[in-house]
C-alpha cells in the first residue's frame, strides 16, 4: 500500500512541478500576439504558393502587419477579395488587382514537332536542357518533362501529347510554373484575356517552319490585322498588350499557322 502511495505522490509531484513551471513560463515568457496578424492571415487563402514574393501566407501577413506600405494586392490566388479584406483590416488602399493565369506559350506537341535525341537521364526539364539545350527539335519549345507539373500547388498543369498544358479553371496564377520553367515559355496572362500567343520560337520563316508545324513564322499578319494596335512583333514573336486588346480575336483568325490561340476555360 505504502509503495502505491509513494508512487502516486512522487509522480504527482513531478507533474505538479512541470505544470507550475509551464504556467509561470507562459505568463512571463508570453509574446503578445498581434491581433491584426490573425485578421490579415484570415483574409489570405492559405495556398502558401509564394506568388506574393514571401515565403508563404504567414510570412506575407507578418510582413504586412509590420509595414502595410508593401501593398495589399500582392496575393494573386486571393485576388480582389483578399486585397480588399487586408485593406480593410490595415486601413490602407487595396490597390489595383488583375487576376492572372499561367499559359504555356508553345504548341509543339508530338504531332507538330519531335525529338532530336533519346534522353535517358534525370526525368526533369532542367536536366535535359543541360544537354545541347534540350531534346526538342525546336530549341525554344516545351520539353515536356514536367518541372511545372511538380511545382504546381493546384495540380493544374498536365503533360498532354508531350507538352505542358494548364487547366485555367484550376490555375490561381501563383506563377510557380512560370518560375520553374527552364525554357521560359510559361507566361502569366490576365484571366480575362481572349487570345494568347502559343509559340516561343524566335526564328522566322522557313527556319521556324522546319522545326514545328505550329510555329510562328513572324509573318506579322496579326500585327497588321489588329484593329486595336495591341500586337507588336518583338524578336520575331507577337507580343499582345492586354491593356489595349479588345478581344475581337481577329489575330487568331488571321494567323496562317494557328499559333495565336483563343483562350478558353479549362485545358486549352
Amino acid at each position: 500500500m505504502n509503495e502505491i502511495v509513494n508512487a502516486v505522490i512522487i509522480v504527482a509531484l513531478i507533474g505538479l512541478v512541470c505544470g507550475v513551471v509551464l504556467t509561470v513560463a507562459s505568463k512571463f515568457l508570453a509574446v503578445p500576439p498581434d491581433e491584426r496578424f490573425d485578421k490579415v492571415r484570415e483574409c489570405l487563402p492559405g495556398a502558401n504558393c509564394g506568388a506574393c514574393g514571401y515565403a508563404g501566407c504567414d510570412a506575407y501577413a507578418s510582413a504586412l502587419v509590420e509595414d502595410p506600405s508593401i501593398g495589399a494586392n500582392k496575393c494573386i490566388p486571393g485576388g480582389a477579395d483578399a486585397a480588399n479584406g487586408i485593406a480593410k483590416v490595415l486601413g490602407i488602399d487595396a490597390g489595383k488587382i488583375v487576376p492572372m493565369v499561367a499559359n504555356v506559350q508553345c504548341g509543339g506537341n508530338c504531332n507538330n514537332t519531335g525529338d532530336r535525341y533519346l534522353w535517358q537521364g534525370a526525368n526533369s526539364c532542367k536536366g535535359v536542357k543541360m544537354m545541347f539545350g534540350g531534346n526538342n527539335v525546336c530549341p525554344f519549345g516545351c520539353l515536356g518533362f514536367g518541372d511545372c507539373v511538380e511545382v504546381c500547388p493546384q495540380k493544374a498543369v498536365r503533360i498532354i501529347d508531350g507538352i505542358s498544358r494548364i487547366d485555367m479553371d484550376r490555375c490561381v496564377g501563383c506563377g510557380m510554373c512560370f518560375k520553374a520553367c527552364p525554357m521560359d515559355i510559361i507566361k502569366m496572362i490576365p484571366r480575362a484575356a481572349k487570345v494568347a500567343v502559343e509559340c516561343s520560337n524566335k526564328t522566322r520563316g522557313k527556319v521556324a517552319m522546319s522545326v514545328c508545324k505550329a510555329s510562328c513564322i513572324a509573318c506579322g499578319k496579326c500585327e497588321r490585322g489588329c484593329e486595336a494596335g495591341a500586337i507588336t512583333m518583338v524578336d520575331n514573336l507577337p507580343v499582345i498588350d492586354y491593356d489595349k486588346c479588345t478581344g475581337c480575336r481577329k489575330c487568331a483568325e488571321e494567323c496562317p499557322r494557328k499559333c495565336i490561340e483563343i483562350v478558353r476555360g479549362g485545358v486549352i
Partner: protein
Amino acid sequence: MTGFIAILITAIFVENYVLSKFLAICSFLGVSKNLKSAMGMSVAVIFVMMAATAVTWPIYYFLLEPNNLSYLQTIVFILVIAALVQFVEMFIKKSSPSLYNALGIYLPLITTNCAVLGAVVLNITKSYTFAESMVNTLGAGLGYMVAMFLFNGVRSKVDNADVPASFKGVPITLCAASIVSISFMGFTGLVNGLFG
C-alpha cells in the same frame, strides 16, 4: 578519456540510433527531403536530447531509484520531456525570435520523437554516469545528424531516378533507407578493434 571517445563513436556509428536501433524513423523519413530542414531538425534533436538527459538522469537517480520506482521511468520521462520541450519553445520564442524561426517548427515534432526517449532510457539501462550519459546522448544526436545528412544525399538521387510506378514514393525510400542501414552494419566491431 578513451572511455568517452569509445562511447561517442559507439553512439554515432556502431549503434546509430536511426540506422541500427531504428528509432526516430518517422522524422528520418519525413524531414530528410530537404538538406536545410534536415540539418535544422538534427540540431533541434541534439539540443533537446542533451537537455532531456540533463533533466532525466538526476530525476531517475535521486528520485525514482531511491524510492524503488524504476518501473515508472518511461511515463515520468515522457512527462518531463514534454514539459521541457514546451518550456524550451516558450523560452526561445521570447529570447531569440530568429532561433525560434529556425528551430521552432521542429520543436513540437521532437516532443514525441522516440530517439529522445530512447536515448534517455538507454542511458539508464546501460547504467552510465552523468558525464557518460551526456556524451552518449551527444553521440546519439550526432548519429541522427549523420544519418539525416547521408540519407538526404541518397534521397535526392532516388528522386531523380526513373523508379517503377509501384515503387514510387515511400516504398523506394524505405528500400533506400534499409540499404543505408545495412552499410552501417560495417561499423560493428569498430570500437572493440580500436579501444578493446
